[in-house]
């Protein structure tokens, strides 16, 4: 009896101390923001990443596991710009978590902190998968990661005020390492400037903007519409007039359309990791860009 009581009181103690030190629960919609939150939050945060690099974030099931995780989140970190519109609103309504509702400090949208590209001048679903706020694939430019990092660090400090100085120190360290790494990538990638490329999905405008790549064609006839054989043939004909060095796709895209073009146009097909976890090498944000730049350079040889 005495032992049982002892064990019980011990476990109660354990539970209470655990909750007193409980880390901030971060629910990241995409792997890149999960990785960024981990960089900036260290051991003060517990990060749950809702999707992986092999999934198309436009189309995710509002799974029960995601509802359960969102229920206990203190901070929601997503891209925004309607990237998650097909599933996040349902999760938010089902989770009943007041901390992470739109407008609350616990709701962080990365797209608010960068300059958006490809803002459509006309909103019509006849144009395919249109994002009124601009192209949401902002994570392919490290300068955007830096900007989002600045804002996310401030948000962490706001949501978890007692650890504000910790987050500031973490951010200072990260920002410096990131700046150095960015310089390195830019130097490495200098020969890619002006290179003509074909993309499978319009997922790389920010990468193109960063490295000065020229997108000459898209395999999807319209954003979010699977490549058709007639459109692929058109692209092939176009490439005879206007050659490109390579065809690029994200890890989650089906490889068939790129392969088809690659074989016929005799240009390499490159699968970029697109986000953390998209290749064996892309284990964190730094190795994501190491790998991205390396793959582009290898293909450009």
């Amino acid at each position, binding site marked *: 009896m005495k032992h049982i009581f002892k064990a019980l009181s011990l476990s109660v103690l354990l539970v209470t101390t655990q909750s007193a030190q409980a880390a901030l629960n971060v629910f990241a919609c995409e792997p890149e923001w999960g990785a960024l939150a981990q960089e900036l939050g260290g051991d003060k945060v517990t990060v749950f990443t809702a999707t992986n690099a092999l999934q198309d974030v436009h189309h995710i*099931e509002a*799974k*029960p596991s995601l509802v359960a995780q969102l229920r206990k989140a203190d901070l929601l970190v997503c891209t925004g710009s309607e990237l998650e519109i097909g599933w*996040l*609103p349902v999760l938010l309504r089902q989770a*009943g978590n*007041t901390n992470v509702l739109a407008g609350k400090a616990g709701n962080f949208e990365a797209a608010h902190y960068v300059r958006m590209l490809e803002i459509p001048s006309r909103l019509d679903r006849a144009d395919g998968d249109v994002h009124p706020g601009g192209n949401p694939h902002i994570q392919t430019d490290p300068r955007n990661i830096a900007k989002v990092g600045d804002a996310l660090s401030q948000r962490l400090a706001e949501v978890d005020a007692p650890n504000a100085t910790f987050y500031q120190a973490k951010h200072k360290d990260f920002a410096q390492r990131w700046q150095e790494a960015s310089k390195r990538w830019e130097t490495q990638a200098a020969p890619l400037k002006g290179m003509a490329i074909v993309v499978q999905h319009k997922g790389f405008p920010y990468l193109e903007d960063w490295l000065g790549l020229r997108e000459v064609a898209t395999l999807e006839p319209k954003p979010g519409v699977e490549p058709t054989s007639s459109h692929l043939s058109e692209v092939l004909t176009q490439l005879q007039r206007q050659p490109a060095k390579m065809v690029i796709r994200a890890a989650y895209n089906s490889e068939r359309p790129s392969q088809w073009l690659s074989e016929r146009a005799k240009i390499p097909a490159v699968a970029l990791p697109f986000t953390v976890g998209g290749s064996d090498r892309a284990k964190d944000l730094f190795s994501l860009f190491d790998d991205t730049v390396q793959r582009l350079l290898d293909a450009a040889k």
Partner: protein
Amino acid sequence: MFNQKILVRAIALTFLLPAAAKANDSNELEALRAEIQQMKQSYETRIQTLETRLQTTETVAGNADKKAEEASVQASARPTASNALNPDISLILSGTYANRSQDSNYHITGFQAGGEIGPGTKGFNLGESELGVYASVDPNFYGGLNLALAPDNTIGVEEAFVQTTTLPYGVTLKAGRFFSSIGYLNDQHAHTWDFVDNPLAYQAFLGNQFGDDGIQLKWLAPTDLFLEFGAEYGRGRIADTEGRDENGGGAGSIFAHVGGDLGISSSWRAGLSYLDVSPKDRKSNDIDALGSDVTNSFTGNSKVWLADFVWKWAPNGNATNTSFKLQGEYLHSTQKGDLTYDVDQAANTGRYTASQDGWYLQGVYKFLPYWRAGLRYDQLNSGSVNYGDNAANLANSSYDPKRISAMLDFSPSEFSRIRLQVSSDKSRQEATDNQVFIQYQMSLGAHGAHKY
């Protein structure tokens, strides 16, 4: 400034030149010429430098302009109009073409099933057009209205509810008219169904789909495993009945859902629900002991148990090319009350008790981007039925209605779907109805997010 000075001096010298020549001092003239040449050179160099500087300045200014333009594009992308706060509006358009081997006088042998059930009429049918308007009311509430515009030009309020968003501890309270969260399929709108029609068990025991006027309380447990509990209390408008004009309610239900992931490729949800509803004057089509078509009416109490599960699979959780969904539900119903036989003529009321059940199992496989194929099997078990005073009018049947359906659908985007379905419907003991449906479903407007 500096330019002007040089210019003045150069001009002055040019005028002085003839005078200097007159002086006829060649040495002096040479020196003067050299000086002029030097000045001219320096003047040209300076002009050139200035031009370069001007060019650079212009480029920088141009860049600044471009940036300002881009910034203003971003700024103007934000809505400023007074209608910017309009709610999300979505419209579902749907239509069916049906080819059937039997007439449209539908009933389910041995079941007093009411509501909008059956395969509908033959030929071209406009489906229900659904108009949905949803938005946050204020920081505390979310609300919405879903109107069903029927092909006979009537409008029905399918859902009209408000829901809290800021209650603590994972609690949500909903009030108004809404589809009950019992079972798996019940709270899903028709445009998200995987088949043209709902399972026989839903048609027999829930009048196709149970929506009520009332309140719902839901609680989501703070666990890694999805664990949700809920209760509803309402008027009891089941199967097209009006509900009771009484204090209190005519229907109560409780439900629990549990769910999670199995690795990254599959996820599941299972549930258990109980509904206690007291319909008043629930009309059902039937065939009497003499073989004539009759309409009966039930007033009493109905208790329904539901067990449901769904399992979804996609390689790495990416359903773009391949996915599979398996779902099944079991419903058990106990009914006690008064049944009026043939309300239009005999109108003989007698005691009615029935204990019956039914189930379905369906699988939908996405085998190519945009293309899915599905198979569903439905069955009802006649169970035990006692017609009391009407035993002579309505014969007991040990017939178990069943149906098998296969479908193929094509969804070129998440907003459009075209479906072909064939069914062999043995709801009626006397005749098998072979059905072919071609259906389209399109969604316009606000981007709907679908439930699991």
